[in-house]
């Protein structure tokens, strides 16, 4: 290869490298969710007696934090799965769940107790909290004089680490 040819290749290579360099950014965009959620799955007994449970669709669900004025949902139609976020400020939080917004009397409180763990996502996304669920209680069995929708809750997976496919909490409703 002649000297001229070599210099041409040298400049060509430098140009290609500069093209790659132009794509470099001061900060990469964050492409991951920054907050993790507890995935809820709603069930009801298939018959009045028996141990078979099936998915149930909540007709017009309202789900909001109890100790926080923020509104999370105002009425979601026909869902059998939903998710909520735990408070990163404390080791417990309370939510209320109303299966049907037209029946305000049927309203339950979910009380979550958990451990928080700071988790590094990436330089682009920063930090978030992962959680380990210790206990979930409902008010359904506590206040017997009120009509409740929830029969019981079962923790299916204690580790809340951002996996959207994992079911964390099974909520069983009265028929």
């Amino acid at each position: 290869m002649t000297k001229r040819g070599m210099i041409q290749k040298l400049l060509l290579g430098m140009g290609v490298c500069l093209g790659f360099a132009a794509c470099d950014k001061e900060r990469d965009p964050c492409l991951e969710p920054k907050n993790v959620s507890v995935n809820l799955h709603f069930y009801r007994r298939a018959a009045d007696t028996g141990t078979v449970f099936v998915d149930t669709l909540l007709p017009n669900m309202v789900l909001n934090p109890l100790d926080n004025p923020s509104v999370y949902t105002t009425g979601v139609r026909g869902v059998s799965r939903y998710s909520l976020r735990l408070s990163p400020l404390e080791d417990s939080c309370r939510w209320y769940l109303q299966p049907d917004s037209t029946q305000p009397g049927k309203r339950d409180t979910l009380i979550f107790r958990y451990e928080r763990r700071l988790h590094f996502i990436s330089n682009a996304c920063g930090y978030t909290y992962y959680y380990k669920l210790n206990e979930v209680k409902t008010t359904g069995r506590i206040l017997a004089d009120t009509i409740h929708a929830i029969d019981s809750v079962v923790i299916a997976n204690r580790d809340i680490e951002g996996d959207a496919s994992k079911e964390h909490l099974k909520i069983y409703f009265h028929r």
Partner: protein
Amino acid sequence: MLKYLIRYILILAPLLYAFPLYAQDDTTADDPEEVNKPKDILFRQLPHQWRFSLDLSKPLSSALLGNRNGYELMTDYHFRKDLYAVLEGGWGSSRYEYPDLGYRSANAFMRIGFDKNMMQRLSLTDWDMVFAGLRYGMSVIRRGESHYTTTDSLWGQTSGTIGARTFTGHWVELTGGMNVEVVPRIFLGWTIRGRFLLNRSAFEELPPFYIAGYGKGDKNTIFDFNFYLGYALRWNKAKVKEAPAAPEEKASPGK
């Protein structure tokens, strides 16, 4: 990692092998004497060459991006046939300041390895090269105390600090590139590099976003490049008793 390794090899191989094939078109490869000539005779004819190079690309990108700076030096010594022993080193620092995450870091690094010239030498004065090479790199990185803020639109913000930490990084590189002696003893060249982090687990907890000599600290494979300006020292041109009769005059019509 194997997937990335194969990808880099596939990218580098056609680029680097195309150059010597092209270069051979200009030589007297059809000449049987030239073809049969032992290459070590030519090697013994050559003077020693020790080259020192300064990387121009990192100061340039530091000026453009603002939140990092890095400086790299390279030296190579022609020690055998088409092989060059390479030692590289440098230092750098970064400043990462965003509302949700902030820290400063600094590091020094070194890389050691070799380059193999893939191009046939056309004359005793031909030091141009198209090369492929391999490096082992290591760096000691100091990340200062970091401050973070998490934001949840429902619950609000939390914030805190993460203590300073020292990391040691190890990686290997596949390199490819070219060097051209634009005027006697002065070289310009570029090197592209595919890097593969060896100790990934050490970088899981808030690695610096920029590590001089490596690249983005939270990536396990990195593509990078350098532009070099170099100066070559040459000395002790050896006397060769059985030197062939001026093969280089025939071999370099275009140079």
